[in-house]
């Protein structure tokens, strides 16, 4: 029995050793819970560490981090939460795990429309939800979201799931513009125009255009950059070559944009470093890295988009406030179910 006990305790020590990168509470560190993938933020964090000497620790997960901070309560090691989508930024505020960012630097760098009025979240980059159109089969140079419900597109549209945060954001912006009833009608129209039921991710939709399964697809801009520069899977460059980007509603209210952003945790143990990080991420330097490596749009005025992004055309962002869009997310999600969007075309 004793040897069994020893073996078990030995194994436990092994496990403890495996998780030795314990919560870092010492000075000179900042603890990041991130819904954004490590590779996206690593170049920025490296630059931050180089500039300030503050070490950045990261936990990445795709969901549940807000709930984790809430459960950990006042002993939570989290300093900031990085996330995409206005819904999640606002959700963090609703969960009560945030505190306002008080910084003149941040307020100076980030225009007010990209910040929570009370300072509970700060937007860091913009991503536009655009239309990928087949170079061969689509002649028109302009398009609107409203037009996607036009029967002329019957069987020609591809998109990912209606319940994905990106789609929800777009539908919520339609509700903000047209109201619930009209949006429902529109969404049912788009559903009937789908080539097949929504599956896969944004890149898969472009691949479907390449394959001839559909003519237009809804997607985020930066995937174009990722496909165009993918040396490891050169076939994706071919997919990208088969499409061009149309910025919807360029001639009226502008294209739907969503943000990626950051919140300051309520019980941040390294609050000073956390604010330093947020200030750094809002700076021109960091915004430039975002633009160059991830093909996103900077939110800080005066920071240029990358050459590649520029080559896709000019973005005119929809000026509706993101806080307003966030309010309609729940209704948007309900509409997706109501019209059976994810079941695909009814015929």
């Amino acid at each position, binding site marked *: 029995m004793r040897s069994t006990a020893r073996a078990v305790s030995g194994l436990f020590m092994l*496990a403890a050793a495996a998780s030795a990168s314990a919560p870092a509470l010492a000075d000179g560190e900042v603890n990041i819970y991130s819904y954004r993938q490590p590779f996206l933020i690593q170049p920025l964090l490296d630059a931050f560490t180089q500039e300030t000497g503050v070490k950045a620790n990261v936990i*990445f997960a795709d969901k549940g981090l807000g709930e984790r901070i809430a459960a950990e309560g006042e002993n939570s090691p989290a300093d900031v939460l990085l996330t995409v989508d206005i819904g999640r930024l606002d959700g963090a505020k609703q969960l009560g795990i945030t505190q306002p960012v008080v910084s003149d630097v941040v307020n100076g760098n980030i225009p007010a429309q990209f910040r929570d009025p009370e300072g509970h979240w700060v937007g860091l980059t913009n991503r536009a939800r655009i239309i990928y159109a087949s170079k061969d089969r689509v002649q028109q140079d302009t398009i609107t979201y409203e037009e996607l419900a036009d029967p002329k597109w019957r069987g020609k549209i591809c998109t990912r*799931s209606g319940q994905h945060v990106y789609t929800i954001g777009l539908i919520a912006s339609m509700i903000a513009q047209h109201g619930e009833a009209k949006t429902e009608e529109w969404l049912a129209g788009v559903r009937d125009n789908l080539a097949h039921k929504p599956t*896969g991710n944004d890149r898969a939709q472009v691949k479907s255009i390449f394959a001839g399964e559909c003519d237009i697809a809804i997607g985020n801009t930066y995937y174009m950059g990722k496909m165009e520069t993918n040396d490891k899977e050169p076939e994706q460059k071919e997919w990208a070559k088969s499409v061009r980007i149309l910025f919807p509603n360029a001639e009226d209210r502008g294209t739907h944009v969503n943000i990626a952003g950051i919140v300051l945790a309520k019980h941040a143990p390294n609050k000073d470093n956390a604010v330093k990080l947020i200030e750094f991420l809002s700076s021109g330097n960091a915004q430039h890295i975002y633009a160059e490596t991830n093909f996103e749009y900077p939110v800080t005025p005066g920071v240029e988009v990358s050459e590649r992004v520029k080559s896709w055309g000019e973005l005119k962002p929809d000026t509706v406030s993101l806080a307003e869009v966030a309010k309609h997310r729940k209704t948007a999600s309900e509409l997706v179910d109501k019209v059976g969007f994810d079941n695909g075309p009814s015929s």
Partner: protein
Amino acid sequence: MTFNQTQSGSEKRWKWSAGLLSGVILFPLLALAWIAMSPVGDIWGHLLSTVLPGSFATTILLMAGVGIITIAIGVLTAWLVTMCDFPGRRYLDWALLIPLAVPTYIVAFAYVEVFDYTGPVQSLIRWLFGFQSARDYWFPEIRSLGGAIFVMSMVLYPYVYLTTRASFLIQSASLLDVSRTLGATPVSLFFRVALPLSRPAIAIGASLALMECLNDIGAVTFFGVRTLTFSVYDIWLNRSSLAAASQLSLAMLLMVFALLWLERQGRKRQKFHSTAAAKHKTPLRFELSTGWGITALVACLVPIVLGFVVPALLLADQASRRLEDIFSETFVTTVKNTLALASVASVVTVAVSVILAYALRLRPGNKLRSAVRFASVGYAVPGTVLAIGILIPLATLDNFISSQTKAWLGFGTGLLLSGSGVGIIYAYVIRFLAVSYGQIESGLGKISPHLDMAARTLGRTETKTLLQIHLPILKPVLLSALLLTFVDCMKELPATILLRPFNFETLATTVFSAASREAFGEAALPSLAIVLVGLLPVIFLARTSASTFRTKTSNRKGPTAAAVSA
């Protein structure tokens, strides 16, 4: 076990430790129940009138499809490798387990690559018939319910295979031999003797496969198959109602209970004790004629090719473009993390299962039985939801300890358990208890109570009886439980990703972060590593477990076998 009328002290200790353990394991489910009690507003009316009936139907179809295919493949191949002799049998014996090591969502991805428009199959069709685009011909869509059933069945059938195979091996050879002398043909022996005898084992394997298919989120999202689990995440993330999501998760648990209950009702009056004591002779194998032998070989190869070879080739192709990553320091650390967590967690899980199953054998009380049953269904709860259920009790305990030390000693301890390896191991034990408990319970059930009585009469305590009598007999079952749990822990994603400490990666989380940025090529190397690392224990344990069943005298090939197969 009621031969001992008065409870001894040691028996009480068993009962109490089992009660305590199941309590600890039940905590997260209770936490979910607690979350589920918060008000959810009018969410259900809307969901019931829109997607829920469809999600329910989809889930039932998915489970039915996966259930039928995994049972068919698992039982057939298990029968072939244990009861028939044909070329390659000895290798297939363990090779049939390999697909288990491949994470479902990776196989899903691989098959999209294979059957997609740009994949080899459709390219070949276009080349052969001169089609120009996808609109010129019809091709079944892999991203569909049918596709999901296919992909999941190909990686989940080993659960049924492993449990059924163990059952065929442990079935008293004499029983099968007697049936044969009484004129049973291979077919009737299979349907009238071996299959009914193995029903509990098949049920355990199939219920594991079904629970895993019920809680899957990666493959179903990728395939656009709207299951109940998809709805759970949808409700939580898009409707911002963790309470309603917990309610739906718990309702799904009830569904699992209903299934398990139905199955148990079906064989309520049957008892499965093996009459032979410790040594099992391998039953005589049917020697198949060349034609049938090749048929058997092909039948066993098909699931291996579909569940492992095809995805592995694709992964290998992608990984070969990035071989330099192997030597990176992070990759080595990642492999170490994965191995450490999976080995500790699988040993703990099996130990907990043994304690629970043995305590129930000693004092089969109804309260304890229900607690244990509840405790072993964590497997069916969608992973991230369960992870949140785990976070709550852990963090509450941490915060309590910290506030106490602050009050009495003047400093807070911060978070000790949550956000450490302990939290992840706790999660693994809860998630995969079902995987090992079912096998160990049924293995113990096969040991005749006469053995306990004899051991006790000869002066062994309960604990000594377990250590000296039961565990040695159970060795093959323990090994297979250990193996399954180990492989499952290695693949586990949702709890690992949410509960992990800072800057901590396992192979599964590495696969995930690559997959989540839609860079499947980069997921290839760590995926392949999961498969390869999972392969080693599969081979090792499968060989050991097969040899422990075999005694020296069992390799006889008598004239009877030849006569039957002729």
